[in-house]
């Protein structure tokens, strides 16, 4: 489960292999706007970048420290509010603060808050920590409608990023400029968070997660290890908040409430909390789902909920865990054994999912469409939602897909066992 990078310790210098993923990521971030130059695409990519930073910060708690927080949006939101205020002060008092350092200030503000809250919330891990994070989160979210001076009430706080000092001639009017600023902060934050996980404190965070008592008998106070992780996580969440403020130029209560905290838990868990890159996958996938799926269907959150619960029940390692399960077959050179069973599974699984989607969508349409509106389009087919046939077809597809998929399971699990078993004959 852990992000064990084998043999890195033996070579004291950074190898090219370690460096390569970062180089590729940086290049990727650089060329993405050339492939997708539209403002809409840039907006989505910015949102992805912000979610990635936030999810990585969240995973410093959940994945690396074993702390489940239901109120981590508070640190991102507070960072965002502070960034908005600073943005407005820059404009009002003509302060010589360039826009690119705003996320850092937001991060520092969130760090301060995390130090205060963490001083009592990190005494325990597990359920107690989760409940405190929930309570504190709700408290601050509720305060946001009362303390209008800081939170701006229901309208939130808004500002204008372009009134500050130009940064080397860049005024951040164009979306592309904001993209590169966000991407730069994404790289910086991701590298720093990765390096953090390789420090003594980062390693002890893992140790405390797995066995707090043993860690105590090795000279480390589990509580202080948790506290430092919590502060660092708050800092990077604050950076995400600052980036959010720069991108959207408005921060409201919605940025720090329970729904937001739940969202980041979902993103991180779907991506896979056990690996450093898990939250990155989760953030990219979630943003895509959010933008693409929400255009297609009104009940996308229902699908998301089902996906989430199914992930917790059947793939607690998330997507990253699922991918990394294949490292053993890969190392044994037996990955090819899985291709055919996977393909055989794909058809029935898609049929089953499509069937269920059909049932949900048709029922939803019948109940929620305007009276008299019986025409609906699903999977590029237009039909009458009140007809029996489409519903019947959907139900049959769902059941047939399920039945066929179950028939492939024995073959799949046999192939899985085979792919994970080393060839003993060859060794003898």
């Amino acid at each position: 489960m852990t992000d064990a990078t084998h043999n890195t310790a033996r070579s004291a210098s950074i190898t090219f292999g370690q460096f390569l993923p970062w180089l590729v990521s940086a290049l990727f971030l650089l060329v993405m706007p050339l492939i997708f130059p539209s403002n809409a695409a840039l907006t989505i990519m910015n949102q992805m970048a912000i979610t990635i930073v936030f999810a990585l910060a969240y995973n410093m708690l959940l994945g690396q420290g074993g702390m489940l927080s239901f109120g981590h949006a508070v640190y991102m939101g507070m960072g965002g509010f502070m960034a908005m205020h600073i943005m407005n002060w820059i404009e009002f008092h003509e302060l010589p603060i360039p826009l690119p350092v705003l996320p850092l200030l937001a991060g520092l503000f969130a760090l301060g808050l995390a130090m205060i809250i963490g001083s009592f919330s990190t005494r325990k891990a597990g359920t107690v920590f989760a409940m405190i994070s929930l309570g504190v989160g709700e408290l601050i979210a509720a305060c946001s409608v009362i303390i209008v001076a800081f939170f701006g009430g229901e309208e939130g706080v808004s500002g204008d990023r372009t009134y500050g000092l130009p940064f080397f001639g860049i005024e951040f009017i164009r979306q592309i400029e904001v993209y590169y600023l966000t991407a730069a902060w994404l790289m910086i934050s991701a590298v720093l968070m990765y390096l953090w996980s390789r420090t003594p404190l980062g390693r002890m965070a893992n140790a405390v997660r797995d066995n707090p008592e043993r860690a105590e008998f090795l000279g480390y106070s589990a509580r202080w290890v948790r506290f430092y992780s919590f502060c660092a996580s708050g800092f990077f969440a604050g950076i995400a908040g600052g980036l959010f403020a720069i991108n959207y130029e408005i921060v409201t209560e919605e940025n720090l409430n329970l729904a937001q905290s739940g969202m980041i838990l979902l993103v991180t868990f779907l991506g896979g909390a056990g690996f450093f890159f898990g939250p990155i996958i989760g953030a990219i996938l979630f943003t895509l789902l959010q933008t693409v799926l929400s255009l297609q269907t009104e009940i996308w959150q229902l699908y998301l909920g089902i996906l989430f619960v199914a992930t917790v029940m059947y793939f607690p390692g998330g997507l990253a865990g699922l991918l990394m399960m294949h490292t053993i077959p890969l190392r044994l050179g037996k990955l090819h054994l899985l291709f055919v069973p996977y393909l055989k599974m794909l058809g029935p699984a898609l049929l089953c999912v499509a069937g269920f989607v059909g049932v949900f969508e048709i029922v939803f349409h019948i109940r929620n469409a305007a009276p008299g509106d019986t025409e609906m389009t699903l999977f590029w087919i237009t039909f009458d939602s009140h007809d029996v046939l489409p519903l019947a077809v959907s139900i049959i597809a769902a059941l047939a897909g399920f039945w066929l998929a179950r028939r492939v399971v024995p073959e799949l699990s046999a192939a899985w066992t085979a792919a994970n078993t080393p060839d003993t004959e060859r060794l003898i």
Partner: protein
Amino acid sequence: MNAPDAPALELAGLRKSFGKTEIIRGVDLTIARGERHAIIGPNGAGKSTLFNLITGRYVPTSGSVYLNGQDVSGLAPYKINRLGLSRSFQITNIFPRMTVFENVRCSLLWSKGYRYSFWHMVGRSRDLTEATDAILEQINLTARRDLPAGVLSYAEQRALEIGITMAGGANVIMLDEPTAGMSHSETEYIVNLIRDVTEGKTLVMVEHDMSVVFGLADRISVLVYGEIIATGTPEEVRADPRVQEAYLGAALEAEH
């Protein structure tokens, strides 16, 4: 603070009650530096409780524990550990999801002065890597270096536990039933390992296997119902009529 001529460990009038039941009923014991001391006694005598009192897992009801002359009673485990006392557990207590290498490295971090550092890279500290590999060599787990600790065999996990315990360089090592649940050959292996790695250190151990105790310990204390009824060399203890009575009594009870 750290008096050079003070005994490694001194217990004075140590008592511990859980509710109304007094489990440790006034224990006085002095263990000299470099001594190998075994605590034996029938089941339920309070050996593990005594261990937990010394190492900070429990807070004494009254009485004191002195480590190298310094009062450590009631201190948190991590503070006692930093003062030079390290322990193992009766039930294997390692970091199962981390590699064997990382298990040992984590136990070295504090003593190597890294503390809560977030400005060092553990992979780039040559001293850390070398010290870790040296310990892996000592406990014969070099071949298992990069495996998750959870997949090791029971005996290997016990060896790793001992490695973790002594890695931090503590001068007082406390082992809680290090050979529990082991086969004869495994026991022999672990005993030799203990003898090697605790060379020049103070060792306090709880043990059931009498051959291990008599083979390893310089002195033995017998704990019965929360009190030490005898302390002395293996020969003295073996000859002590009270010990024979306590042990035979317990053995007879166990047979019925």
